[in-house]
């Protein structure tokens, strides 16, 4: 041990470091580092919780709804769909065998 070559030690260190760096997930997008990537931020804060009543009318439209004649999108932060566009619904039908 006392006669280890500096060159050999340096080369070994570099190889090991490169191997380690090659395996490390840069950053953490989730899975590869389950213990790290899914941080506490992915939990919801403990807010007002419990029975929330029937006020949730948040489902999809059936589609085909036309705006009332004379409809004009109001002033919004978003860009409203053109008045002539009918409201779409969610996908339907399809080739799957379990409808």
């Amino acid at each position: 041990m006392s006669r280890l070559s500096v060159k050999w030690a340096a080369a070994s260190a570099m190889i090991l470091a490169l191997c380690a760096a090659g395996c490390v997930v840069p950053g953490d997008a989730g899975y590869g580092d389950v213990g790290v990537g899914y941080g506490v931020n992915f939990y919801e804060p403990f807010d007002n919780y419990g029975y929330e009543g029937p006020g949730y009318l948040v489902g999809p439209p059936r589609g085909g709804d036309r705006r009332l004649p004379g409809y004009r999108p109001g002033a919004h932060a978003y860009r409203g769909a053109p008045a002539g566009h009918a409201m779409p619904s969610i996908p339907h039908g399809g080739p799957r065998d379990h409808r």
Partner: protein
Amino acid sequence: MQIDRKLRPSSASLARVARRAALTRRAALTRRPVLTSRAALTALTALTALTVLTPAPALAASAAFELPPLVSPASTEHHVGKLVWADLVTTDVDAAKTFYAALFGWTYRDISGQKDFVIAFVNDRPVAGMIRRELPKGEQRRPAWLPFLAVRDVAQAAQIIQARGGKELAVEHNYPQRGRQAVFADPQGAVFAVLASSAGDPPDVLAAPGEWIWSSLMTVDPDTDAAFYQRVFGYEVYDLPADNAPGTPAAQHLVLSSGEYARGSANSFPAGRLGHPHWLNFVRVADAAATAAKAVSLGGQVLSEPHLDRHGGRIAILADPAGARFGVMEWTENDSGEAAK
């Protein structure tokens, strides 16, 4: 030239000097610094630290961690803005597996090398991931379902999200077979992920029972949030009439669509129910009332009783035994039979 004979070296001594010089030169050329025991110890300590500081799961991850492709066989379909996946982040994966298997008939496969992560399947199609994540002691937080919305280019989406006030929670990363993904919080704090699937996105057909069918953003400012998501996913935004009861503030409902299909909605919280903005993801079921009752029998909660939504389709808001919120929705072919195309 005369040289004093006493000073003139003999040929033998010259040879000795030359030999000595040669040996010295060779020694100089071949001499190497050596490590003392202390130096060697320092080097080994540094190497050990390097190895220890590199997260062990990460070291193992690239070799062992393989998510199933989103679509198999791979397709070239891409539906930007569509809900294509969801991950449950919870403290007890085993309890979650039991609950959702009984509720939706989900089956599971472990991911090689990951004891804290499973994939849920419906009819052999992967639909969700479940990840165990410990909460630090004293943290009062709730397990949650994290929706993944389809994009074509994660880096581009990340750029827009951050430029518009969103926050990156997990940087872009590529998973073999799955694609690139990253996790963000929108400007109001609702957490969502984007995924550029390398196998294409699931086809635009009615979700099967047990699959994700819809996603609703519950927020304090649907107007601003819709603008944010419109920038990221290119949604067309449709405003629905407010549904406020007399004497209550108007609740705003906006439909987010892409590819001529509704993909989700941005909504005010119901009157008097302000909370932390979040995405609420819905699973298609055959009977919302029966599913809600079963959820309760399995230790879950009903947060909003089964009720007819404004356009049809009965929905209920539930929570699993650990508290993660999700919705269930009845929907038939007839419900969207009038879809505008």
